[in-house]
């Protein structure tokens, strides 16, 4: 099994941060110690030391090595990110001021992202107006949605539950409210949902399509009910769009 | 544009003065430039395929080297000016190349 992207990001992060903390400690402790030991009070006569070639080499070479290690580890993680498993399921993601919409391989559209558990999913990300960025914090990855282009990344859904997608590239007035709920459900349930189309295909909210799924679980139901409510957190729609006049349609 | 500086500093003299200004060489350069223009226009008519752009740029580069070295006196100028120009060109070329690391593999 390939390593999971999120785990890899976390471990790279801690590797770099750990090294950094050690370096920071060395620098800070040395600094404080010198400040104490060689204060004018304790050491009235300074000594003229103008440099030391060995030291210069040491503190150039060691960081070079550290940095190269960091680079290669992060590169390995990155390769994994870009190398999409062949059997990954494809979801088309479209950003638009200020909502996300998702399209599955069978043309089913939704504004809630519902995914099967333990599956590799590839997102093909585009935009119809300005730049957005499709960000799945829980999965530790994002890629911008640029009009006229398709970017991609993939994830593996290895945990059942409710998460969210956010927009991470500034896109105007409601950039801050461009969330979409992300629900990971067992595959069987997912398939039922995916293959059920709402009566009116132009109004393709998750709630509509769910009505046709008799066996939907609670997670799925609640998720569907608050599609526009940003991962179930945002309810204050009154101030959501206060002033759209600043945006050309 | 440039103000007079008011410091008691002797400069290294005007370098261009070391080489005697003359009309003749510049006229020769001009003839050379016109010929190169004629060449580049006529070559453009020939079908060179992928080479066409290279040739056109090569000729343009030669022309600008002429302009720089003679009309702009760089050939007779202080080393510093040459180094400066080198730095400027280096930066431009690096930036162009790095941009193409994206474009080449993206499109």
């Amino acid at each position: 099994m390939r390593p999971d992207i999120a785990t890899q990001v976390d471990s790279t992060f801690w590797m770099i941060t750990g090294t950094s903390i050690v370096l920071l400690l060395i620098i800070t402790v040395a600094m404080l110690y010198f400040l104490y030991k060689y204060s004018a009070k304790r050491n009235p006569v300074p000594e003229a030391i103008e440099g030391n070639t060995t030291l210069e080499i040491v503190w150039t070479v060691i960081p070079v090595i550290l940095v190269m290690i960091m680079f290669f580890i992060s590169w390995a993680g990155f390769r994994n990110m870009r190398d999409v498993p062949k059997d990954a399921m494809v979801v088309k993601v479209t950003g638009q001021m200020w909502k996300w919409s998702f399209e599955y391989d069978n043309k089913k559209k939704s504004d809630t992202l519902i995914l099967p558990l333990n599956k590799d999913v590839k997102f093909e990300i585009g935009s119809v107006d300005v730049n957005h960025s499709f960000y799945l914090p829980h999965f530790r990855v994002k890629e911008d949605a640029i009009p006229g282009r398709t970017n991609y990344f993939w994830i593996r859904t290895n945990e059942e539950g409710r998460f969210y997608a956010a927009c991470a590239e500034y896109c105007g007035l409601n950039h801050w409210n461009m969330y979409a709920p992300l629900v990971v459900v067992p595959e069987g349930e997912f398939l039922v949902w995916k293959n059920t189309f709402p009566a009116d295909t132009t109004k393709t909210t998750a709630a509509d399509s769910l009505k046709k799924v008799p066996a939907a679980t609670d997670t799925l139901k609640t998720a569907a009910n608050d599609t526009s409510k940003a991962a179930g957190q945002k309810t204050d729609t009154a101030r959501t769009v206060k002033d759209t006049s600043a945006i050309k349609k | 544009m440039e103000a007079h500086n008011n410091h008691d500093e002797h400069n290294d003299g005007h370098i261009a003065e070391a080489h005697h200004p003359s009309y003749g060489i510049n006229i020769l350069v001009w003839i050379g430039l016109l010929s190169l223009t004629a060449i580049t226009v006529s070559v453009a008519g020939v079908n060179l395929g992928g080479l066409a752009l290279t040739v056109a740029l090569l000729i343009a580069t030669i022309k600008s080297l002429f302009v720089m070295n003679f009309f702009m006196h760089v050939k007779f100028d202080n080393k510093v000016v040459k180094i400066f120009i080198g730095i400027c060109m280096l930066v431009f070329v690096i930036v162009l190349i790095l941009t193409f690391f994206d474009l080449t593999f993206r499109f």
Partner: protein
Amino acid sequence: MANGTIAAPAAEVDFYHVKGRHKGLLSWLLTTDHKRIGIMYLTVMSVFFLTAMTFGVLMRLEMLSPGETIMSAQTYNSLFTLHGVIMIFLFIIPGIPAVFGNFFLPIQIGAMDVQFPRLNLLSWYLYIIGGALAIFSLFGGGGWVDTGWTFYVPYSVRTTTNVSLSVFAAFVLGFSSILTGLNFITTIHRLRCPGMTFFRMPLFIWSIYATSWIQVLATPVVGITLVLIILERAFGIGVFDPTLGGDPILYQHLFWIYSHPAVYIMILPAMGVVSEIIPTFARKPIFGYVPIAISSLAIALVGYLVWGHHMFSSGISDTSRVIFSLLTFIVALPSGIKVFNWVATLYKGSIEMTAPMLYAMLFLFIFSIGGLTGLVLGALNTDLHVTDTYFVVAHFHYVMFGGMGIIFFASIHYWFPKMFGKMYNEKMAKVAAYIIGIGFNTLYFPMFIMGYMGMPRRYYDYLPEFQVYHLISTVGSWILVSGILIMVANLLSGLRNGSKAPSNPWGGTTLEWTVPSPPPLLNFDQIPTVDHGPYEHPEIAKRKEIKDE
């Protein structure tokens, strides 16, 4: 000052009191004296700086609690844009070179002024015009700009706010910056006093030299890019418009080709000041003069090669992401060399913990955190998680405010006696520095945590799980504000009632400490001759002689 011969004024008269051709305000507005121009920059810049800081504090207030706290989303979006634009283009880029570079560069190399004094004044006027335009843009019809300081297309082309005017302001400010850089490079080449070889220049000069090259060679690129935004908005030429076939990512390339090197325009001069302060108060020569000098040039050069790290998530090719990531790791090395040399300078010194030194030590700590978190951003896979989150916001405040900003404070304290001929209250200054240090970290450290948890930047509102961090952060901003207010008050009272400053209050060894405080109009009554490096403290020089004999 025109061509010709003038008599040097008596050396005792400082430059504030020289009777020139003009009187009163005009004697400032028409001056070509580099010191007066420096002071004028300082005055105007402080106003902009405080304005932008106030915006920052207002933003923090909004983030105090979820939902609308004190402003609407549109206002918030404009506030962070203006905060960013003013901080970047009006404060941190011109900051140290325009104020302290102008004032001290000629003196430190033993010259009487910069090479092109009138051009210098023109730069100041361009700065003022740019600033004024930025302010005008607030009152124009379309409303406050709301694009973020990066002006990304296509949003910046679509929004109806006053983008064109703001962008034009940034363009004018760019020219001010270019002219200053060009002036300094020529000055350093042409006006060094006898004996002042390149390797006897103070490190501040080295860093300004490197900075100036970036200013000259990088700024025009953003200039033309911003002009293209204006043209795109006015005529729809299409080069950045995806509906016409343009590529929005090319805009990002052009923008960052300048704006990454620009972050080194911000930090290099600050690093130069640190290299002045530490040897002065450690009473010994700097450790590793040559490596520090060369690393400035290295940063300037390699700094051109890494702009792509701001675009890792934008969909640039995988190859270029890898190359830019590798280069980003490399650009961190020269900064590391500097940090290590600074710390080593403390070794076996005789350290006096004055206010400027305290700020410099604060810088070492804070800048290292900021720089090291830059490595997380430079790493490909982690950046895709933290880019455009508060992690980045924390990173750049640590390097910008904690790096250049703190050193701007250090510079004021270090050169205050020389610039104004007065002393400030040392104890108060240190108290303020401690409060600033505490406030700073309380304000920005939680942002790293939020960022890693997934709090995107430029968000007007947030999910409840981030509440506690935002709360701590906002409280931190209050601590910071009080520290800064104490600092400003202390400096102002020093300006009014401070005791008279001697010409060399710190025992500094560079040339500015050999002239009276404040310096006379022409800086020196006789151009000095230099026969040793910049940091030879007299006690040490004496001992050396004894040893040699």
